């Protein structure tokens, strides 16, 4: 499924669902009413968009720190010849939530989320041992803004 396969309702739905589902008894019916479609159609569309990977996820977005957890952004400078091995080693840690290749000497950037703030350092030590590389730990010191919204 590409962007061109999305019809007008799909686009409305993607934009609407980024803002959040109302927490009411029949939430999908409520959004379907707003969009003027049937609840079953809406459920089918969300499922299809998820299967096609247009939506990575649909559900509650939890605030890591308020759940009592640890969260940080970290980076590695990975030698090109070793990139696949290191990628597999890093991704094998369940605490790695996402991991992106970026074009810079620091070419691997990942978010760590742990059960407790204290666990962050243990996971970083584990990644350094598994990869043989030094982890650049860059926890947020101040949050100025977070609001991802991608209109389609």
């Amino acid at each position, binding site marked *: 499924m590409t962007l061109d396969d999305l019809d007008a309702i799909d686009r409305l739905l993607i934009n609407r669902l980024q803002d959040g589902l109302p927490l009411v008894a029949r939430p999908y019916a409520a959004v379907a009413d707003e969009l003027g479609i049937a609840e079953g159609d809406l*459920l089918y569309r969300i499922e299809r968009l998820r299967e096609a990977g247009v939506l990575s996820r649909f559900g*509650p977005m939890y605030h890591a720190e*308020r*759940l009592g957890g640890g969260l940080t952004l970290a980076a590695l400078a990975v030698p090109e010849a070793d990139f696949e091995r290191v990628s597999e080693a890093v991704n094998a840690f369940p605490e790695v939530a996402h991991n992106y290749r970026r074009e810079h000497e620091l070419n691997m*950037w990942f978010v760590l989320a742990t*059960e407790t703030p204290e666990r962050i350092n243990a996971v970083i030590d584990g990644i350094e041992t598994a990869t043989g590389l030094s982890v650049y730990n*860059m926890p*947020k010191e101040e949050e100025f803004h977070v609001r991802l919204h991608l209109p389609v």
Partner: protein
Amino acid sequence: MSVSTCPSESRQRADGRTDVAPVNSLDERDRAIVLATQVGLPLVPDPWGAVGREVGMSGEEVLARMQAMQARGVIRRVAAVPNHYRLGYVANGMTVWDVDDAHIDRLGREVAAIEGVSHCYRRPRHLPHWPYNLFAMLHGRSADEVERQAAVLRERLGEACRDHRILYSSRILKKTGLRLAGAQPGAASKDTERRG
């Protein structure tokens, strides 16, 4: 314990710092709901009832507890997370700036308010290799679009900014809803993950 696939959204106080709720604001029943929904919310007309059957609660209790968690900011929202690339946002630039520490709190807030900036944080430098202390994520349909946005940020930062880079993501190596260690695999995923 954490499950956000995006960095978190926090209440800003008047001084721009972030309030964090007490760690002990979740009880065991809340935790059970978090575990059951971290991979997603069931796509059925009564998702609260479906979650309730997983965790041994009524749908009414699940809904009431999720409303309370949202009111406390533990749940930012129940929403769709789009795949940037699949929506045509193929240029995702992490812009990083070396900003004078004396001005970063004011400038960080100003940059964060610029259209197109999705996340904006102050982070530690790692000198000498990494002098950048302000991070702002930009998303565009082309590198040109991201560079036009970055030019706006550059102008706003002015003389306080010594250097900057745009690090484009070129590959998603991993992207998951996080899994709590010790969670029962699949326990919460039947309704939402079965077709992968």
